[in-house]
C-alpha cells in the first residue's frame, strides 16, 4: 500500500529525516513511536505533501505510484489521509459544509459526479453515529471552540467520510480523555479493512491498547532504529526510550 524508501528530509537546512524505510501492506496497522523531536510529525507532514519540508532523497509510493511530484490535494484524492495533531479552525464553515466540499472535490478529481444530497446525508448520519457525535456538532463551525476530544473525533469522522487508503493518525490520542479515546479508537477499528491501512504516530502507548498494531517502529533522530510487534510498545512504555539509545550506541 504505502512504501517509503530511503527518505531524507530537512527544514531550513536542518536534516530531520535521515533515511526512513517503511513498508505498509493493505490490511495492516503500523505504529511509529519515538521521543519528542525524533521526526514523527515531520514524517506525517511529508507523506501528506506539506511543502514546508524539503525532501532531498528517497521516495514515497502509494500503491506503486510515486507521490513526490503531487500536490497535497492530489495525494488526498488518491487516498492519503492525515489526522492532524492540531486541527485548525475555520470560522463560519460548518463541519457538514466542509466535508461535503472535500468529498465532492475528491469525486471531481476522480471523474465522478457530485454525491447526491440524500446519499451524503445518509453517510453523514451513519458515520457520525459511529463516532457517537451529537448532530448539533455537524452544524458548528469547523473546530471553532471544539474541545480537544471533539477536534480529534471530528478528524476521525472526516476520515470515515473520505474512506482513505492510508490513514495517518498523528498523535490522535493527545488531548483525549479515556472515553473519547475509546470512541475514537473504536471508530478507527471499525473503519479498518483489508483494503486500507493505518499508520499511528504516537508518543505514548495507551492508544495502542485500543488500536492493536501489527508492527511497531521506533523512530529516533530521523531513523527507524527498531521494529517489533505490539509487545514492543509495552516494553517502551515500561522502560522508556533510553535503552534503545544505548542499544544503538553499543
Amino acid at each position, binding site marked *: 500500500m504505502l512504501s517509503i524508501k530511503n527518505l531524507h528530509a530537512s527544514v531550513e537546512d536542518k536534516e530531520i529525516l535521515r533515511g526512513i524505510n517503511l513498508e505498509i501492506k493493505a490490511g495492516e496497522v503500523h505504529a511509529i513511536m519515538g521521543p519528542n523531536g525524533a521526526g514523527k510529525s515531520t514524517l506525517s507532514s511529508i507523506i501528506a505533501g506539506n511543502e514546508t519540508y524539503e525532501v532531498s532523497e528517497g521516495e514515497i509510493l502509494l500503491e506503486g505510484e510515486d507521490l513526490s511530484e503531487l500536490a497535497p490535494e492530489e495525494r*488526498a*484524492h488518491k487516498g492519503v489521509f492525515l489526522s492532524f495533531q492540531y486541527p*485548525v479552525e475555520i470560522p463560519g464553515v460548518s463541519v457538514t459544509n466542509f466535508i461535503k*466540499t472535500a468529498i465532492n*472535490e475528491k469525486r471531481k*478529481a476522480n471523474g465522478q459526479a457530485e454525491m447526491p444530497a440524500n446519499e451524503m446525508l445518509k453517510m453523514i448520519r451513519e458515520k457520525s453515529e459511529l463516532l457517537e457525535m451529537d448532530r448539533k456538532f455537524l452544524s458548528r463551525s469547523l473546530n471553532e471552540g471544539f474541545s480537544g476530544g471533539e477536534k480529534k473525533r471530528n478528524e476521525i469522522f472526516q476520515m470515515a467520510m*473520505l474512506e482513505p487508503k492510508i490513514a495517518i493518525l498523528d498523535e490522535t490520542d493527545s488531548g483525549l480523555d479515556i472515553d473519547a479515546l475509546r470512541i475514537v479508537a473504536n471508530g478507527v477499528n471499525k473503519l479498518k479493512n483489508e483494503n486500507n491501512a493505518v499508520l499511528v504516530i504516537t508518543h505514548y502507548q495507551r492508544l495502542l491498547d485500543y488500536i492493536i498494531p501489527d508492527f511497531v517502529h521506533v523512530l529516533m533522530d530521523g531513523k527507524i532504529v527498531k521494529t517489533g510487534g505490539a509487545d514492543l510498545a509495552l516494553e517502551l512504555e515500561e522502560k522508556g526510550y533510553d535503552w534503545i539509545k544505548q542499544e544503538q550506541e553499543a
Partner: protein
Amino acid sequence: MSKYTEDDLKVELENKEYEYGFYTDIESDTFPAGLNEDIVRAISKKKNEPEWMTEWRLEAFRAWEEMTEPHWANVHYEKPDFQAISYYSAPKKKDKYESLDEVDPELLETFKKLGISIDEQKKLSGVAVDIVMDSVSVATTFKKTLAEKGIIFCSISEAIQEHPELVKKHLGTVVPQRDNFYAALNSAVFSDGSFCYIPKGVRCPMELSTYFRINQGGTGQFERTLVIADEGSYVSYLEGCTAPSRDENQLHAAVVELIALDNAEIKYSTVQNWYPGNKEGKGGVFNFVTKRGLCEKSAKISWTQVETGSAVTWKYPSCILKGDNSIGEFYSIAVTNNYQQADTGTKMIHLGKNTKSTIISKGISAGKSQNSYRGLVQISARADNARNFSQCDSLLMGNNCGAHTFPYIESKNTSAKIEHEATTSKIGEDQVFYCNQRGIPTEKAIALIVNGFSREVLNKLPMEFAVEAQKLLEISLEGSVG
C-alpha cells in the same frame, strides 16, 4: 500624406471616447466638457424638467462650486478634472452582437462561473435579444403586479414628470444638495436613477431586484435613487448586479435616499462589481457614493452591501434614527484585491429614544490593496436608551495588503449602550494546508475560508443573490494566492 477617410474619423472618435470613458454618439448632440450653470440648465431642459427641478439643480451646483473634494478618506488617487468631463451624453447605445460567440470569452467565463442563464448573459452583454421574449413578458407581469398594489417603481426622470408632488416633497430631505462635494455634484447633474414608492400598509410582494436586473443592464454615472416606504409598508430593494460591469465611466457619484415612515421597513441590498482596474492598478472606476436613510417612529432600515468592484470606493450607507424605537442595520462585505482601495462603513445617528443599531463589517484584503472601515455611532442627548453593537472583522491575504479600522463613537447620553468588537486575522498557511489535505485545492480553500468569514453578512442577502454573491467573492479573489 495618407487619405483621411470617414472611417478614420470614426476610429479617432471612438478612441477618444474610450480615453474619457464616455460614449459619444456622433449622430446626437453631446454636451461639451465642463460644468457651469448653462450646462446644468441644459441637462434639465433636455430632460424636460419642471422649473422647480431646474432651480433645485442650480442650487446644488452653486453649492458645489464653493466646495472642495474631501481628502480625509484613507484612499489615494489622482483627482478627476471635473471640467474635463462631459455631463450629458446621449443615452448609452450598447454594442450589439449577433450571438454570444462574438462576446469577450473572458466575460462569458465569468458569467458561467456566476451561474447566470444564457438568456440573461445575452441581455447583459448586449447581444440582440429579440429571441428572448421571455424576459420582456416577465417584466410586464411584474409591472402589473406592482401597479395593482399601488406601488410606484419607475425611473427618477419619469417620477419627476408623473409624481412631482412625491419627488418635490422628499428629494434632498435625507441627503441635502450641499451635504458633501459628490452629493452636490450629483444633485446638479444626475442623469437618471430609480424611484420607488410603497403605499401605506403595503408589503411589496417581490424583491425589486428581479425586475431591476432584467430592465437595467447599464448603470448611469450620476445615479439618483429615492425610495419612500409609507407608514407600515415593507420593501426589499436590490441594486447592482453580480455580473461584471465594464462601465467605462471612471467617475461614479451616486446618491441614494431612503425614507421609512412610521413602522415601515426598507431592506436595501447592493452588490457592486464595477471594473476594479487591471492587475497593475491601471484604470477602474472611482465610486463615490452617498447613501442615507431616514427612519421615523418604529421604522427599520437595513443596508446590506457586497462591494467587490471599483478601483476606489468611498461609501458610507447611513441611518438617521429620528423616530423613537427605530432600528438601523448595516451589513457589509468589502473585498479589495490587487491595487483596489476601499474606505467604507456607516453612520448611525441616534436621535430618537430606544433606538437600536447594528453594524457588521467584514473587510477582506488581498494583493496590494487597502481596505478601511470607517464608522460613526452618534448618540444625541435626547436619545435615551440607545443601543449599538458594532463588529468589524478584517481578513488579510498575503503580506502586501492593509486593513484599517476607524470607529468613531460620540455619545451625549449616559443611558446609551455601545459595544464595539474588532478582529483582524490572516488566512494561515496551516488553514490552507488542512483543506488541501482533505482534497480541497488552494483556490477553493480560500473561497471556503472567505465565505465562512463573510457568512453573517451573506445570510442577510436575498436568497438567490446570496449564492451569486458567494461565487462573486471567489472570483474577485482568484489569483490572489501564489
